[in-house]
């Protein structure tokens, strides 16, 4: 696939045996292709964000990684063994959106269960504290809010010393401060050398936290690299300015290297494949742009640009 960026970070992180290895993995649900010939490796100590639009195969990929589903073709290995075996060894902790909680039990009882089941468990009180559950430890699980439930799931995923932590949309339902606290705890985990893989809808989270971003689309690998590399791969920069006089959109459309153009009132937003040439031509039109800003794309825009390019490519076929 021409759009796949294969990246070697070269910072020495990718040494040692892969933590997770997907080899030509495919999974279909009836006629729906959830994961298509996916190959990827995760290495120790990486913090990896899994991005993609709804239906891109993120959850299916995580299900396969955790052995909750078996692939139709290909091979999934976690720590050189089957996902099930890696989980039984207590090397993997996971927090799933679809993971339900036991009802009619107290938060502390449930967290204690997770600790007792873990071969390398932390003390219960410590796990409760880290997930900010100490204050509600005696509440019944079925009486919690969405964000509180999410924290209980997090506590269950971090009940012991896992080498790999898998999180599916972990901060959904959390408010901003809870989200920040959550990533604070996660950073502490990666500092201790753990590998973290998380799927998210919040691209700013991926941008701020992940040192590697994997973009899926239609169950296929669309891009794989650092956030900076993904942005560079989108191959565009963003130009924003105000016009000091009304100008027809048609004239601006003539600018070279234009990827997109958007006007609202006098403010113009352009994505350009060569920002220097576009700005130069702008002056050439006799315009005098005010408040001119030239910047790289945010991860979100880069993600959309890559996604749009892939859609266009498919349509052209």
């Amino acid at each position, binding site marked *: 696939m021409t759009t796949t960026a294969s990246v070697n970070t070269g910072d020495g992180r990718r040494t040692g045996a892969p933590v997770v290895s997907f080899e030509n993995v495919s999974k279909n649900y009836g006629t729906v292709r959830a994961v298509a010939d996916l190959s990827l490796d995760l290495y120790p100590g990486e913090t990896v964000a899994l991005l993609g639009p709804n239906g891109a195969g993120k959850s299916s990929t995580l299900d396969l990684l955790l052995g*909750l589903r078996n692939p139709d073709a290909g091979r999934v290995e976690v720590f050189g063994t089957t996902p099930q075996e890696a989980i*039984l060894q207590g090397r993997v*902790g996971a927090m799933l959106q*679809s993971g339900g909680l036991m009802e009619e039990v107290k938060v502390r009882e449930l967290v204690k269960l997770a600790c007792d089941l873990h071969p390398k468990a932390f003390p219960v009180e410590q796990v409760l504290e880290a997930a900010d559950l100490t204050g509600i430890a005696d509440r019944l699980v079925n009486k919690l809010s969405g964000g509180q439930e999410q924290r209980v799931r997090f506590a269950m995923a971090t009940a012991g010393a896992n080498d790999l932590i898998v999180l599916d949309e972990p901060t959904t339902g959390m408010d901003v401060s809870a989200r920040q606290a959550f990533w604070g705890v996660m950073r502490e985990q990666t500092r201790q050398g753990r590998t973290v893989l998380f799927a998210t809808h919040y691209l700013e989270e991926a941008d701020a936290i992940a040192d590697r971003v994997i973009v899926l689309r239609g169950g296929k690998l669309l891009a794989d690299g650092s956030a900076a590399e993904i942005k560079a791969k989108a191959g565009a920069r963003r130009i924003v300015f105000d016009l000091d006089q009304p100008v027809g959109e048609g004239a601006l459309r003539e600018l070279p290297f234009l990827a997109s153009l958007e006007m609202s009132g006098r403010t113009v937003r352009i994505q350009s494949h060569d920002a220097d040439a576009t700005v130069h031509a702008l002056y050439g039109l006799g315009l005098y742009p005010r408040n001119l800003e030239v910047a790289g794309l945010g991860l979100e825009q880069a993600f959309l640009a890559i996604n749009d390019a892939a859609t266009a490519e498919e349509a052209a076929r």
Partner: protein
Amino acid sequence: MKTLVKLEITRTLRNKKFVFFSVLYPAVLYLLIAGGASNAELVEGTKLTLPLLMMVSMASFGAITAVLVGNSEKIAKEREKGWVRQLRLTALPGRGYVAAKVASASVVSLPAILAVFAIAAVVKGVRLDAAWQWPALVGSIWAGSIVFAALGVAIGYLASGDAVRPVTFIIYFALSILGGLWMPTTTFPDWLQSIAKWTPTHAYAALGQAIEVGDAPHLKDVGLLVAYLALFAGCAAWLYRKDTRKG
């Protein structure tokens, strides 16, 4: 594993409605059915009185209620809510979940058996020939209920959502009536009696009835129950694995 069993028991006991129906319902039903019967008359074709016969039947019925209905509904519900998925992300082996469910169900079935026995002995004055028969009866009814706990697990994996309750009750009532738990099978027509003899509930009740007359349980009944246990546990294991692959 021990924590899971303990937790399953705790939450079962917290569900007051379930405990009430599982523990007291069979005893109440016993009084309704055997309440008017006399201790002097023998049930046709047996050497037992109705109050004695029904004591074993209702204790068996109560034990089945606790393990079968409790398990199938809980498992179906927990599957739907994703708790089973969550548990599979822990180091608990799959069979651990099933074992915990069976164990916690047994905790409710024991008082259900004892309640029927107590009512029968106190209210109806049921007496057995030898003292050993009481613990032997409790033990065999309790142990035999494991067969139905396994059936409950299988149903819990077979049916889901709204279907689980009707499916459970159809199987449960059919087995209870056919097996003679509600009325002696001697009242059935011949063709139905020959079918009834092969039901797990009949073999289960027969365990207790053999002990009642002072015999050891018949090998045929024990064998039949073991075969059913293997069948139900096998089905449960197969359905559990299928649940993994399902899309």
